[in-house]
């Protein structure tokens, strides 16, 4: 009887412990995704003006005037998931803008005529040595054939 009581107590404790851990895990998952650096962002992929080309338009807004704002990395995939291009964002290639709070830009990728592509953008803002980023996936677009 004494042993049964002990086993029951251990079982109850174990259940309680597991439940507590689950609660903690779910609380972490539900924590806010606010940002000190980024206010809003959006992007879209569209057929380009020439064969096989697609154009990626984006807008990134920081919470205030920032050292850099825009796209820090742009990865283009085929609809199958194959990565076909990785572009690091810089001021020179137009993906990043210096000393501003918003950046409206675009990037044109030249691929296969009729090919289907989507893009993953890393939205980025940097200020006073700190920064934040968010990944953004576009829909799939068919390049002109």
């Amino acid at each position, binding site marked *: 009887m004494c042993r049964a009581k002990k086993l029951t107590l251990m079982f109850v404790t174990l259940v309680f412990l597991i439940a507590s851990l689950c609660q903690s895990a779910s609380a972490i998952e539900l924590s*806010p995704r606010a940002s000190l650096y*980024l206010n809003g*962002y*959006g992007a879209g992929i569209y057929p380009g003006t020439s064969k096989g080309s697609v154009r990626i338009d984006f*807008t990134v807004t920081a919470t205030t*005037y920032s050292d850099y704002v825009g796209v820090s990395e742009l990865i283009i995939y085929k609809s199958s998931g194959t990565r076909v291009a990785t572009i690091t964002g810089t001021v020179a290639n137009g993906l990043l803008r210096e000393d501003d709070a*918003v950046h409206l830009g*675009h990037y044109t990728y030249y691929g296969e005529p009729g090919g289907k592509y989507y893009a993953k953008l890393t939205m980025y803002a940097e200020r006073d040595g700190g920064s934040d980023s968010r990944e953004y996936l576009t829909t799939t677009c068919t390049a002109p054939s």
Partner: protein
Amino acid sequence: MPTDGRTQTYGFLDQLSTEQLLNLLRADFDSSEDGDDEQIFQILEVIEKRERERAPDSLPDAAQAWEDFQTYFNTPDGTGRSLYPMRDSAGKSAAGTARRRRRPLKRLLPLSATVAALTVSCMVTAQAIGFDIFGALAQWTAETFRFEMGAADPASEALRQAVQGTFDECGVMIPAPIWYPEGSMLARDISVSKDTEASVILCGFTCGDQSFFIEVQQYYQNDRIPSYTLEKDAAEVEEYSSNGRLFYIMSNLSSSCAVYSSDQTIMVISGDLSLETLKQIIDSIGE
């Protein structure tokens, strides 16, 4: 010789003829003011005394008089009619009604004047303190009439013109806000990013040690509007309608943000703004 005060006061009644006494009674009956009951009593006493003196046995038979009254006066077709024939009764009645109407008006006139004077003095005081009461009353053109708050504030008007000018250049379909928090100024030149497919305007303001932004994204084709994501914390999103537009108000840590989207336009107002100030800016955006 009169022996008491009452007799001394109404002693003149004895000098009047019975007809005159009856006229006094009629006049008191017609008057809307409360009559002198004592005088009426004295008049009746005088008349009764005279009747008794004239013919002690010729006092009217009360029972007969009552029967006459029921027969000739208290009839259905006599309802609402005066018991005594009146000369120019319509005029006298109208005069009495007019007197009664003028009395309340006479009482209300000084009260109305006092209230009006207080209101005007309060408005002048508020204007002196800084609330533009007179400027906010009304504005109209040949076709429309509207109330506008804060329109006359020179600083806000200058900001509005600067923002509206940029909006017009980029074909933005939303009017610029009319009202800005006191002490607001542009932090730097209004930033415009233009593309073949869209324009993004960013107006940054400072207000003391705080700052806020008005951003407008204007897209030129319906099929080129991206899905736009805003960062927010766990606080609830509030829907706020003003001038036919539905704004969504949220917070991103210490910053508040209001966003509106319609057709090809997205407007975002964000920064170190209280909820009340944010809503005032929103409310000042015309239709």
